[in-house]
């Protein structure tokens, strides 16, 4: 049986979640591997949330916020982006592929772009394989 990854998508209520909603209204299909968690702002997603997801069976995590300059809380998406960048280094340090953690910036009008990103994320993680049993630390 082929490997089906579990991917957690933290989506900002104002933008990325709107994009996912729009994709639904447009009846666009996207992989069932994606589990969306709506957050008030991508800046709300802390390192703990992301690491908890990986430690509890997620094979990939993406944090999706508003386009840069469009954050409804001014800089939450920038903070989230910085956090993701630093955390990717920490994941690399323990031997986990940084590609498993991504930050996306999209607007609520970008329904089809959201689908494309989720498809791409799923393809990347499917190619990487599961986290569990993927080998020892670096």
């Amino acid at each position, binding site marked *: 049986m082929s490997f089906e990854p579990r991917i957690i998508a933290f989506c900002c209520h104002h933008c990325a979640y709107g994009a996912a909603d729009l994709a639904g209204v447009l009846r666009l299909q996207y992989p069932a591997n994606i589990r969306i968690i709506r957050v008030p702002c991508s800046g709300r997603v802390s390192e703990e949330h992301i690491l908890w997801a*990986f*430690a509890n069976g997620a094979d990939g995590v993406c944090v999706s916020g508003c386009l840069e300059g469009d954050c409804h809380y001014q800089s939450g998406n920038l903070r989230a982006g910085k956090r993701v960048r630093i955390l990717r280094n920490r994941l690399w340090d*323990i*031997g986990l592929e940084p590609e498993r953690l991504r930050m996306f910036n999209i607007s609520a009008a970008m329904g089809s772009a959201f689908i494309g990103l989720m498809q791409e994320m799923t393809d990347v993680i499917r190619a990487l394989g599961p*986290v569990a*049993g*993927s080998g020892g*630390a670096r």
Partner: protein
Amino acid sequence: MILARPRQVSSILAGLGGARRLAVIGCQECVTVCQAGGRKEVSCLAHLLRIAGLKEGLPLMVTEATVARQCDTAYLAPLDPLVEQVEACISLGCGVGVQFIAERYPGVPVIPGVDTVGGGGTTAPGVWEERCAMCGECVLDQTAGICPVTRCAKSLLNGPCGGSSGGMCEVDPDLPCAWEMIYRRMKERKSLDDLRSIRPPKNWVSSRSGGLRRVIREDAMR
């Protein structure tokens, strides 16, 4: 406060020596302020260790705990039942906390989760700077409140060396020369004459060369 920075998780993993039941112990004092070893950092490190175990296919059982102060045995006592259950502890306290835990639980390996840097404070959000080298005999009254022991790369006590250029240190062009700072502040205070006064040499016996230093206050003793 004591400044510390997190160690790489890979080096912590390398020091586990086959231990699979672990306790990650944080401290709510200085290392919480410099975001190296508080409750949140404990949680993140514990998750990273769990992920590393998951990857390896040999799960690590990681328990999290954060105490009010690791440098105080009274706060360590509640950890006793937890440490009994584990094969190794990772302390996110400063070097003092690591040693206090190791002293209380001599049979359990204790791995430092942070590198302890020194005495300092917050200068900007996310920036912490050393201010005190803990040399044991303070000279700040003679140097306009600027510590040459800490700030000068050579810890000079009698003015700048020849490497001071344009107010900056030769060791790092972004590092202000401590003696230039002292001179300017004394000039501002119109107390430059104080620099001319002859002082006895600083007593370095109370610094780092005499082994373990103790602070004893009879009035605080039982």
